[in-house]
């Protein structure tokens, strides 16, 4: 990696000249801003970042970044980013994708990405709808939702991107809503700092085709009762008055009332590496449980590109490369 002088950056340093073209009111604006703020905080120059996206409203993001960008095709940003990272391991590689892009047409790459664990950051903008194509249901759309392709209501069970990432072995999983900009910036930085594939699931409101989809747990007046901040080493408490806590029950959490400011011992102190807690926290389904926000999982294992590089080094040490020799290998004979 080319070492880079640490300089002071501002969010605006990561802007492009192009004017964003999302609908006024779209939460994609907030995420764009957060990404630029996170990059400023990370402190690497814009040429050391590449943002790779698929197709969708969300996937237009690279055009508004002053970094390198690749707006690929629908569902394929993950493999493109994989190839890029293997080719240029010193880059900070970001994937921007939507619920349709990542989970519907791109589902297979999503599943396999986490098995590889290439060091990149996957940001999924989940608005539970197809925005760009004007309002069809997506794999995360709730059952019964009425929309253009389901005038009588969607009949499939929704996918759970976080659960899926966990099942497929993601080494870093975090979740947040675009309405929490500060926390979003912080999680983006943490995702960047994690070596391996980081998955950040972002609830993003589509103002036009699925407005208010997340109000139940993001609307200011009620959100503190309906989502819970997950932080490594911190107790799992929530509620406007921090009057509820989670304790380990029969294979899942139980919610208990607690005295604000006085967290009993049986309330779980979160451990982002504890597979049992991770499973329980990702299993929490709203409205039975509050929606978990924060880093849900963080464990370390070798990245794909490092493993591949070691094999190349091993091969070099075992068989020092000599192409002319290789060409002449096997039986040879002279013609005079």
């Amino acid at each position, binding site marked *: 990696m080319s070492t880079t002088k640490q300089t002071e950056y501002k969010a605006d340093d990561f802007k492009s000249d192009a004017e964003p073209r999302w609908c006024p009111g779209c939460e994609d604006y907030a995420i764009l801003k957060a990404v630029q703020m996170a990059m400023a905080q990370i402190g690497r120059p814009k040429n050391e970042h*590449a943002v790779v996206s698929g197709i969708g409203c969300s996937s237009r993001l690279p055009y508004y970044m002053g970094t*390198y960008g690749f707006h690929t095709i629908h569902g394929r940003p993950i493999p*493109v980013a994989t190839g890029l990272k293997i080719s240029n391991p010193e880059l900070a590689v970001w994937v921007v994708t939507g619920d349709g892009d990542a989970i519907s047409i791109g589902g297979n790459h999503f599943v396999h990405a986490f098995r590889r664990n290439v060091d990149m950051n996957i940001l999924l903008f989940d608005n539970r709808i197809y925005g760009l194509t004007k309002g069809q249901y997506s794999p995360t759309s709730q059952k019964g939702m009425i929309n253009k392709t389901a005038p009588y209501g969607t009949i499939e069970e929704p996918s759970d991107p976080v659960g899926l990432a966990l099942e497929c072995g993601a080494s870093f999983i975090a979740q947040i809503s675009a309405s929490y900009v500060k926390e979003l910036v912080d999680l983006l930085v943490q995702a960047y700092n994690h070596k391996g594939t980081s998955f950040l699931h972002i609830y993003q409101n589509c103002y036009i085709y699925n407005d208010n989809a997340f109000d139940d747990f993001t609307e200011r007046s009620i959100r503190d009762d309906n989502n819970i901040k997950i932080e490594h080493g911190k107790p799992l408490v929530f509620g406007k008055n921090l009057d509820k806590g989670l304790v380990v029950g029969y294979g899942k959490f139980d919610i208990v009332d607690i005295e604000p400011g006085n967290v009993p011992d049986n309330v779980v102190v979160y451990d982002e590496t504890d597979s049992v807690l991770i499973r329980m926290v990702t299993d929490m389904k709203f409205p039975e449980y509050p929606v978990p926000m924060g880093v849900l999982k963080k464990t370390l294992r070798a990245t794909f590109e490092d493993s591949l590089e070691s094999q190349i080094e091993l091969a070099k040490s075992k068989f020092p490369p000599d192409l002319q020799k*290789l*060409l002449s290998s096997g*039986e040879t*004979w002279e013609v005079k």
Partner: protein
Amino acid sequence: MGIHKEDILETVTVKFAGDSGDGIQLTGDQFGNTTAVVGNDFATFPDFPSEIRAPQGTTYGVSSYQIQFASKDIYTPGDTPDVLVCFNPAALKVNLSTVNKGGIIVVNEDEFTDKNLKKAGFDSNPLDLNDRTLADFRVHKIPITKLTVEALDDFDMGHKDKLRCKNFLALGIVAWLFSRPLEPIESFLKSKFSKKPMILEANVKALHTGFNICDTMEIFPVMYTVPPAKLEPGTYRNINGALATAYGLLAASEKIDLPIVYSGYPITPASEILHVLAALKQFNVYTIQTEDEIAAITMALGAAYGGSLGITGSSGPGLALKIEALNLAVMTELPLVVFDYMRSGISTGMPTKTEQGDLGMALFGRPSDSHVIVLAPSTAADCFWISIEAVRLATKYMTPVVVLSEGFLISSSEPWKIPNLKEIPKIKTSFRTNPKGYLPYKRNKETLARDWVRIGTKGLEHTIGGLEKTNETGDVTQDPDNHDLMTRLRAEKVQRVVNDIPDLEIIGDKNADLLLVGWGSTLGSMRAAIEAVNGAGKKVAMINIRYLNPLPRNLGNILRKFKKVGVVELNLGQLNTIIRSKFLIDTSFLGRVTGQPIYVSELTNFINRELESLKEH
């Protein structure tokens, strides 16, 4: 050594055939090796039964290996064998009809049991004295199994392991018949079984036994010699298309000084390249087995975007899945190399068989007006040079290159004069580094290529993608005239490659009336056919087109020089469509879609027919 009559032959075709499990391919390869060392020219055709391993003794489980070798230049593995070596009745059943009348058939008579004969579909035993099935041939029944087991009597190994040596006994027999030395085979065995001395000894013993019994038992009335061919001086080796392709990529990588990222999803027959490259990681080859073909091409594209040699390969069904991403590569003007090892038939078809069916797809098979460079190697060794050329053109013109290779070329082999790497020119790449005046879609005046930027370079930050771009700036736009312009520029860029590729050379009689036009692997058969008919005093010429898009500059002039043009393809007329459309010439056409290389005899028939029809007019 007994005294044997020696006959001198100019060219011979031998075919080994037996069960997939009989080691036929290995036997054939080793016969090729010893043939090479004697200095003959040769060409081989390994033919696998199908993608699945079949129960022993069945006709659909028959594997074969055909080799033609000669004291002169040859171009094909031969139409039909002079000598057939059969390991079981099924092998005889399947191949009998192809053996040249009067040819030699060597059979392992131990396998001609009632059970095996029934499995093979014989009503009676063709080896029986009064059976007429083999009346036209010189049949040699040898108890190969028994001889092998006996020869290995002393060896402390299982019966099954002993049986595994019988192909080397058979090889010994054929080596004797054609006066081949055993040393190259022994040295192969030594390296292969260096850690299993017992197996090594057993195989060497079997080999010698086979050779020796011919001396002692006087099985064959004659022993043949095929004198060395007059090849260009140099050091030679045997090479097949899979190795040649991979080595060519390594050479290109060395010459351009960039690592290879080769991502692929296994598919017959393309997997072979992935296998070879995966084992050559020391040459900075990053191989990735992906979850599917879409991931394979998009990863390679990501690597090309990053500044490496992004390469992917597949066969028909897999190529079909890569089309959408290939168009992204065309739109973003990135140097992606895509190998297509064409196999037989639509859909799953006949996966282990060969064909030239994907030309139309390579040229027209993408939504909208989409142009790529299309190359096709014509021999196993040519795969080496085409790999280098593909990398050179892709990076120089910033465009995807599709290489249409063939199933047949992958496995067939021929003697190859080992090139001196120093003599291969370097491939220039100049990544743009200067931010001044940089515009992502500004083009080189001569090539129309846009600049390649190693992602990460300071000051050149930009975004590309699949949406239509404004000329030069690369900004997204829906401007009508700009789209028309960009569509034409993309086409024109590929057309400009015509300035960078060699003119076609006419093979055969330049003053002939009839010109045959082919591409890819038919080169061999066509060459053999025109030599045959030119030898018979008839005038025919031919060209083999290695650059299929753009077509070489002198093609039109050549075509117009001849009274009649006959196009030959292993499909129903895909190149023919292009030639007619471009040059408005009323070509005639010979297409074979059998999954096999075309026979020289089919070509000579075609030539004779065309020459006749010319006379009539």
